[in-house]
């Protein structure tokens, strides 16, 4: 257990060092959610009232999401580019613990990014920021952070086997914004898409955040605590799935020996 904790800590520390050594890589991570936010808020420019705070909250969540999705993709892809993939896989600790550290780090950056976008949205569009229930808002935000991490971990398994990690993470960024109701209620989505939305943990977290922040907001309609419960259940499933997949993927990668093959 100590070894695993050390691996997670060391992996987070390494991610931080890599970012500090080459901070320009923060730009692609934050730029898409930032521009999407600006465009969305410009579309809201003739609207007033609580819906503006709804949009700004969604913008912050897009920032968190975008960083998690992009960061998960790059957490493994960067190893390929740097030629450190084999060395990482050969480390005497299961790969999943190394990736857990990276994903937690990326989600932390996402949290900062989300907060920055929130502040910019509030200041630029003068939406004001009054949260109905600050403790519940904080709790929902922290648990959504956890759920995003678990989702990022599941996504990252794909990137171990695929050389198209960057392309995939670019491609799924907008679908996750849509599916999780960052900017509009998921109920507006086509019926075939809604089950997918409800299977994504952060969809419920985003709803809980809004229930705690906006006066009179009902959202999905399940209420704050049930939202959190469903999200936590989904999060537990993601972690279990990610750990299972990593064992399989790591075995497959070692057996085939084609990790860096193009």
């Amino acid at each position, binding site marked *: 257990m100590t070894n695993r904790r050390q691996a997670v800590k060391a992996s987070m520390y390494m991610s931080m060092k890599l970012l500090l050594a080459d901070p320009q890589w923060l730009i*692609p991570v934050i*730029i898409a959610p930032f521009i*999407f936010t600006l*465009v969305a808020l410009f*579309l809201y420019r003739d609207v007033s009232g609580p819906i503006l705070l709804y949009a700004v909250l969604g913008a912050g969540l897009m920032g968190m999401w975008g960083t998690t999705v992009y960061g998960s993709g790059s957490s493994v892809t960067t190893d390929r*580019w740097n030629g450190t993939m084999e060395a990482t896989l050969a480390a005497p600790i299961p790969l999943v613990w190394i990736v857990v550290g990276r994903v937690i780090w990326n989600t932390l950056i996402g949290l900062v990014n989300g907060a920055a976008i929130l502040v910019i949205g509030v200041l630029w569009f003068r939406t004001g920021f009054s949260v109905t229930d600050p403790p519940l808002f904080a709790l929902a935000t922290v648990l959504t952070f956890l759920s995003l991490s678990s989702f990022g971990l599941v996504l990252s398994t794909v990137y171990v086997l695929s050389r198209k990690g960057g392309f995939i993470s670019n491609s799924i960024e907008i679908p996750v914004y849509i599916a999780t109701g960052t900017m509009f209620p998921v109920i507006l989505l086509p019926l075939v898409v809604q089950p997918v939305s409800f299977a994504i943990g952060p969809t419920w977290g985003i709803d809980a955040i809004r229930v705690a922040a906006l006066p009179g907001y009902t959202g999905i309609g399940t209420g704050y605590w049930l939202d959190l419960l469903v999200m936590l259940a989904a999060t537990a499933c993601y972690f279990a799935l990610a750990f299972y997949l990593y064992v399989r993927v790591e075995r497959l990668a070692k057996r085939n020996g084609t990790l860096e093959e193009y």
Partner: protein
Amino acid sequence: MERPGLRVRAAQAAQVFTSSIRFGRKGTVIWDSPDMIAMQIVILPLVQISFFAILAGYIGYTASGVQYIVVGNALQTMSYAAVFSVANITSSDKWQGTLPTLMVTPANRMALFVGRAFFQAGLASLMALVALGYSAALFGVSFARADVPGLLVAVVVTGLTMMSFGLLISSIGLYLRTAMIVANVFLFLTMLVSGVNFPVSALPGWLQAVGYAIPMTYGVEATRLAIAGASLGQMATALGEDVLSGAVVLALGYLLWEAFERLARRTGRFEEY
């Protein structure tokens, strides 16, 4: 050694150009995977249009307001190929270690410069046409009055001018460690500054200036005119501005490419990180 005549040099440039197009296609790794082709041409345009169309509908935009946004985004989706992929050509050379080899070839630089990006211009136009198909089939945009030849011209011209814009960023990437950072910025920036989702006039003055420097702004205008039924003659101003801005960014990109190539040769820092 005597320099070949103009005709020979033109023939050599044409040969470099065509082989560069072929190489541009072969170098596009994702084109070996049908799933990636589907993702780029079928899925990406659909999700981008859907995001903004549903958002606009939720805010309460009228049907025509939503369609304005749908058409703008349909054209903007070409940026994935014309801007992002083209801008990353230089970075790919750096990653794959092929940049020094490229630099020492005596091939015509302009033919090489444009040729390698040309495949992406075609792909960009195809993406925009698929996206416009979505706008008709799923988002209620009427093409009943559309001037089809004019529309095709607007899409293809914008594919080429945005490819030129991508080449400008690619040239900057020759100097930078990677063009991917700048490419990411400009992949999405046109959503904000080019009249894709709202008129350029809604932006602060300094952002309007950025918008008017990018060919996409004129391409979107020309496309909307064509869908509204304007003839090629009526689209001439928008198309002319599209071509002019494309020519300016291409020339600027080429000059930068040459300048950075000279710098790289002088300092021997082709691939320094």
